[in-house]
């Protein structure tokens, strides 16, 4: 179905918000600023035209461009390809997950978003990020460390909750 950029933006707003939250490691203010930046780009792009919507990943790419333009955060963990976490708890905490995203380098966040969350193929993710397969593989090596830390944190939170008087018992 043909659509315009404004229509497409509105229909994808929730997904873009989720993406912005993920990329910003759960920081709502950062996510909002990121979306505001994207919005400025879109409005400029529209610039008097009824722009037909293009690729499905138009805004995803634009949001990533914006994200990469921001000052790089300090990465606090390394993608060392360590062993898969041995902790498999009852479920991950979304908060822990976003906290841990916040510790990753930007490109790794983007790669994890595209591949792990959005389930894009490696080819598609590589095209969106404009990197080759080996570079993408390097970025995805953060996955194991990331998962280990999320699971450990989740397990820690669960233990703390259980230990708290009146806390969860199951």
């Amino acid at each position: 179905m043909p659509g315009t950029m404004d229509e497409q933006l509105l229909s994808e707003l929730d997904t873009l918000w989720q993406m912005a939250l993920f990329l910003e490691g759960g920081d709502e203010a950062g996510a909002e600023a990121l979306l505001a930046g994207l919005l400025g780009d879109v409005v400029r792009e529209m610039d008097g035209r009824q722009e037909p919507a293009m690729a499905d990943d138009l805004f995803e790419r634009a949001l990533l461009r914006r994200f990469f333009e921001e000052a790089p955060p300090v990465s606090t963990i390394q993608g060392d390809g360590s062993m898969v976490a041995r902790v498999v708890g009852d479920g991950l905490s979304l908060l822990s997950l976003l906290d841990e995203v916040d510790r990753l380098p930007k490109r790794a966040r983007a790669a994890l978003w595209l591949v792990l969350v959005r389930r894009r193929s490696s080819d598609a993710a590589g095209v969106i990020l404009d990197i080759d397969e080996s570079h993408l593989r390097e970025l995805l090596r953060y996955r194991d460390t990331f998962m280990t830390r999320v699971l450990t944190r989740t397990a820690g939170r669960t233990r703390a909750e259980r230990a708290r008087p009146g806390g969860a018992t199951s």
Partner: protein
Amino acid sequence: MRCSEARDALWPPELPRLLDPHVQRARNHVRGCPECVRYFAQDRQLLDTCDRLRSLRAPTRVRLRVLDALVSATAEGSGVSRPSESQDRANTRATADGTGGPGRRSGRRVAGGFLALVTLGGIGAMVAGHGLLGSTGPTDSVAEEAFVEDYLRRGVGQDFLDSSDREEIARFLQRELGLSSRLLDAPGLVPARVEICLLEGRRGAMVVYHHEGRTVTHYVVADEGVPRGPRVADDHGELAVITWSSGQVEEALVGELPPGELLALVRVDALDSS
């Protein structure tokens, strides 16, 4: 087979794949490899967590910011389209055909319709010297078409509550809009959901009711007009629209029912409450 090869062959696990010899070998490997079993278990957990992430909706302030910017861009001649009248009618027909209507609308179409609605209302409000939202001065009645457009092609749902509890819905209306609007209480009318919406740039709410297997929507918008009783709006194709106002709250009932039936729901409710 190495772990990385097996994982590559089987990831993402939810993707259907042909059971060729390579995939078979990968499966055999994973069955006997605790590390790979854990890897896919974690992936499942990650997906479950991301499902929670995907259930998050952009906050109202973000939606309003986006809409405001797009409407402003439109006002500056930046190419936001208003669907043609014929397209509007086509949408109405689509509803009658069972190919459109609430709950069956594509996101893109819906968004366009909503934007058109906000655009029309927003530009009008801006021209009149008001902001897009939050005008506190005296207001004109919402045009009937706005209720119909919203009903047919509502775009960006905002805060909502799925509930059949009338008291809970009333509290939601009070909290979100400061409206002490009474819910309709005709026999067989069961509330199911309340959702904040924008009507011609004014913030209101829609309460969705189920009535004998059909859906009707009750709109409430703060008003500073003249009280008026329920009346059937002009012809809107398959949709009937009843509008009325208490002077403080402007209301409309919209649904794919004969106008008489819809009007009866309002009148029965009024009789019950008198």
